[in-house]
């Protein structure tokens, strides 16, 4: 069975992309947005910024933002407990 890197077929008059670029885009599409997910286990770094991938629809947040959301949620829950709610 041949490799997909050699098998991207382009309609004859599509001129805006080269085969190699399309192959890389296809690879990115598969590897980054599909595949078996164990939620919450994916963190990637892009240009030195850590990003969290959550769920199947590639919801991306910076780690800093995610931590802030969790801290805020924690503060709310503590507040609820203290106010007896």
């Amino acid at each position, binding site marked *: 069975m041949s490799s997909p890197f050699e098998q*991207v077929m382009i*309609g004859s008059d599509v001129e805006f992309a080269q085969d190699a670029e399309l192959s890389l885009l296809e*690879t990115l599409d598969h590897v980054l947005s*599909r*595949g*078996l997910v*164990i939620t919450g286990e994916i*963190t990637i770094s892009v240009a030195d910024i850590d990003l969290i991938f*959550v*769920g199947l629809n590639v919801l991306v947040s910076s780690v800093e933002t995610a931590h802030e959301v969790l801290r805020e949620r924690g503060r709310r829950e503590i507040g609820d407990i203290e106010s007896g709610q």
Partner: protein
Amino acid sequence: MKYYLYCVAETISSETQLPLGIMGAGVRFLKFADLTVVVSEFDRDVVSLNRENVLAHEAVVRAIFAESTPLPFRFATIISEAKLRSFIESRKASLAERLSLVRHAAEMNVKIIWPRTLDKAKEDKLTIGVGAGAAFLQAKRRELVGDEELESAANEIGGWLASGVRSCVRQQSLNIQPKQKLVVAGAFLMDRTRESDFRTVIGQLEQERSELHFLTSGPWAPYTFANIDLEFETQFGVS
């Protein structure tokens, strides 16, 4: 100890030739009864998103795919051994079922680009000589009618593609986006022996509708058909 995960497969021969993994790490197999998880030992929490790492991930999956049909993990899945063991234990039946579905199969992808564009000149002509309110209403009406027409035409293309390849595929996933140039993105799970038939059918469809541009890629490991359940909602309260 943490592991970077590439894929899970039914039993794989220990003789399988594997490339180096993420960031040059060695790749090894972890056996869990009838399942084998392909991993690299990894001492970091984060993976850099760059060309080398993405290609390394795909190269390992592809090496396994040459021998068996694995369920690939999404890029950058890093997990402790205890969590991995717990995941496999709790999802054993679902994983086995999904592996059985993809056994001897491969994924092919077809994207269709269509030439539909808004006829701006015609629109401008229609709005000349009417007041701002009427022009707004005309534009709104055109938008609504246009949306319906686009959606109907896009669905027709999706249905035509699905029907054309039906005899070759086991399962399919179609994403139709009427407002995009890339109007249909289809992933098709098919028996590996049907690749040539599939390409022939796609060639025939291309000839049938020469106004459409086809981008076909594959065979891939079944990335689109790998997921077994959605934990998102239970863990994060949203979907």
